[in-house]
């Protein structure tokens, strides 16, 4: 409990039980603590109280179109790779009431009593944090700033976790977004069997740690952590060569491969739902049956939806081929010009959760091969 010369950048060794106290402190400060839970044979993000809610001894195994959880029996809380959900649902809610229009003689607005949210996200992986940074570029711009995103982002507390056991579908290292965290978190945990090694990333993080029963890490602990991180890096086998992106895709809109993948893609929109950077949305009006009021909502949308590109007289992308092409040439192409970064962080969710098992790293490689030939 003594402030032993902690600074931003220091690392401490924290007994795992102290995490419960840390989360309690966060809640006292008004945060909603959100973390991974085991549910429906997958990992979902929802409110957690402490260690008891985390998926202890669970590992994941991912392949194209496959996600499995395995009991490892190890005393680890963060051994798995996250499931279909990402943190984007907290900053950019899937469904959000904007306002209600009410006809009281004349039309008026009844503004949405927008509950302000202060989220503490527990267990954010490097790719997920990179995705938040990408979405910051989308939602917080000079010419347009999303007020919902802004409010939630400004109050966000990020407890990051380093991945030690990447799955087969991960390719974060190719995108420069992992597996190890570098910056942007309040606290960053690397987990060992007995202890958490916690790196302090912000003043708030430092204050919280200062209250806890921590030690400065021994050389043994430090060594074990470094080895784990090294191992994690080397276990990532899936690669995406980004050296010729975005041009490779943007300049080859007529590649035969698009037709090829268009035959396999079901346009189910799973990839856009699980992708932590996809940001398209729709605005809907739900009128009360007598027409005296109408609720305006913002909901997630997907460029795979058939009516996404409907204009008067027809659809500019009537075929699945053109919709898949739009998604990929945007994600790994146009995004760069629009926001200064590519839209992909290499989390691999789209590969795992595609029912047809379409792998965008393989698609890019196929186009590259076709162009070279």
């Amino acid at each position: 409990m003594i402030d032993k010369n902690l600074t931003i950048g220091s690392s401490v060794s924290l007994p795992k039980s102290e995490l419960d106290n840390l989360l309690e402190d966060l809640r006292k400060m008004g945060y909603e603590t959100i973390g991974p839970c085991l549910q429906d044979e997958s990992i979902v993000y929802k409110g957690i109280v402490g260690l008891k809610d985390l998926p202890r001894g669970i590992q994941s195994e991912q392949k194209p179109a496959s996600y499995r959880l395995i009991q490892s029996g190890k005393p680890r809380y963060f051994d798995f790779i996250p499931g279909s959900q990402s943190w984007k649902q907290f900053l950019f809610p899937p469904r959000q009431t904007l306002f209600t229009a009410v006809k009281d003689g004349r039309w008026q607005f009844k503004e949405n009593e927008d509950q302000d949210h202060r989220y503490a996200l527990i267990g954010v992986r490097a790719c997920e944090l990179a995705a938040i940074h990408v979405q910051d570029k989308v939602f917080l711009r000079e010419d347009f700033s999303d007020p919902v995103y802004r409010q939630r982002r400004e109050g966000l507390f990020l407890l990051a976790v380093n991945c030690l056991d990447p799955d087969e579908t991960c390719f974060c290292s190719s995108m420069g977004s992992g597996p190890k965290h570098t910056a942007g978190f309040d606290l960053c945990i690397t987990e060992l069997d007995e202890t958490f090694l916690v790196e302090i990333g912000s003043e708030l993080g430092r204050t919280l740690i200062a209250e806890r029963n921590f030690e400065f890490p021994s050389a043994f602990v430090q060594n074990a952590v470094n080895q784990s991180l090294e191992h994690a890096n080397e276990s990532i086998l899936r690669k995406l060569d980004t050296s010729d992106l975005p041009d490779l895709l943007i300049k080859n809109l007529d590649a035969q491969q698009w037709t090829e993948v268009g035959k396999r893609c079901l346009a189910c929109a799973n990839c856009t739902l699980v992708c932590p950077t996809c940001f398209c949305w729709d605005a809907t009006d739900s009128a009360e049956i007598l027409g005296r009021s109408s609720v305006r909502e913002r909901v997630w949308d997907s460029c795979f939806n058939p009516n996404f590109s409907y204009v008067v007289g027809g659809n500019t992308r009537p075929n699945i081929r053109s919709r898949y092409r739009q998604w990929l040439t945007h994600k790994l192409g146009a995004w760069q010009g629009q926001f200064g970064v590519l839209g992909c962080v290499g989390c691999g969710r789209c590969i795992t959760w595609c029912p047809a098992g379409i792998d965008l790293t393989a698609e890019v490689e196929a186009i590259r091969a076709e162009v070279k030939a």
Partner: protein
Amino acid sequence: MTILQANLLPPTAVFPDKLLLPLWAEIIKVIPEAEGVITLQLKFVDPQVHDRYRFEPGQFNMLYIPGYGEAAISLSSDRESASGLVVHTIRQIGNVTRAAGRLKIGDIVGIRGPFGTSWPLEAIQGMDVVIACGGIGLPPLRGAIYKIIRNREHYGKVTLLYGARTPSDLLYPAEYEAWQKADIDLQVTVDRGDENWTGRVGVVPMWFYHFRVDPHKTAVLTCGPEIMMRFVIFEALARRIPPGNIYISLERNMKCGQGACGHCQQGPYFICKDGPIFPFSTLENIFNVEEY
């Protein structure tokens, strides 16, 4: 060709802190123009907003009909007109626009805007101007026509080519005489005429076969069905008008108007904020890609 900063005047018509919240406007006049097309003339309910509201020809508003939703509609007002009303000519084609067609004087609608880029009327001063439009493509150019008329001495020969399906589909016929008197060469054409029609029957792009243009000093402003614009561009390029002097107004599915919801993208552009007006030179690589 950037968004004119003047249009981002935050307090003018958009609530920056509330997503998609419109400002209320009252319908002052309803004018049936042709079958399935009406014009609404609107005034913001808040007089301070109405006084402050500014736009440039080519821009659009998101028009909100409670219970139905929003539609992106180009502004057709003549900015300097005495009434100062916000004018929208709307083709009834979907739920929202059909609901707009059922509105009456005194009804209230929501407006967000103005959004988008505008016709580059300053940049093309000193040039001959060919305005080639068809169908519902004339309303977005109406404000530009009046602005050119008011600054007529700054432009060379000005030709307005306007096509419609049949004579009864022609918009704003009562204004043609005034335009001609202002030294605009008006060439109207229809796809098919009835026995009372003594005007041209044909298509807009064919005009280029009848009249010579000086490719070095001609600017083309075109708006209408994309296929019409495609042929106008083709003919203009065939006459060696540089792609940078051809300006087109694109239309895509718009939900937010602010480059946020992703719907209106074509290639790297958000049509709502990087457009809808583009010089063709910026679109050359993507315009003719099928289904892009």
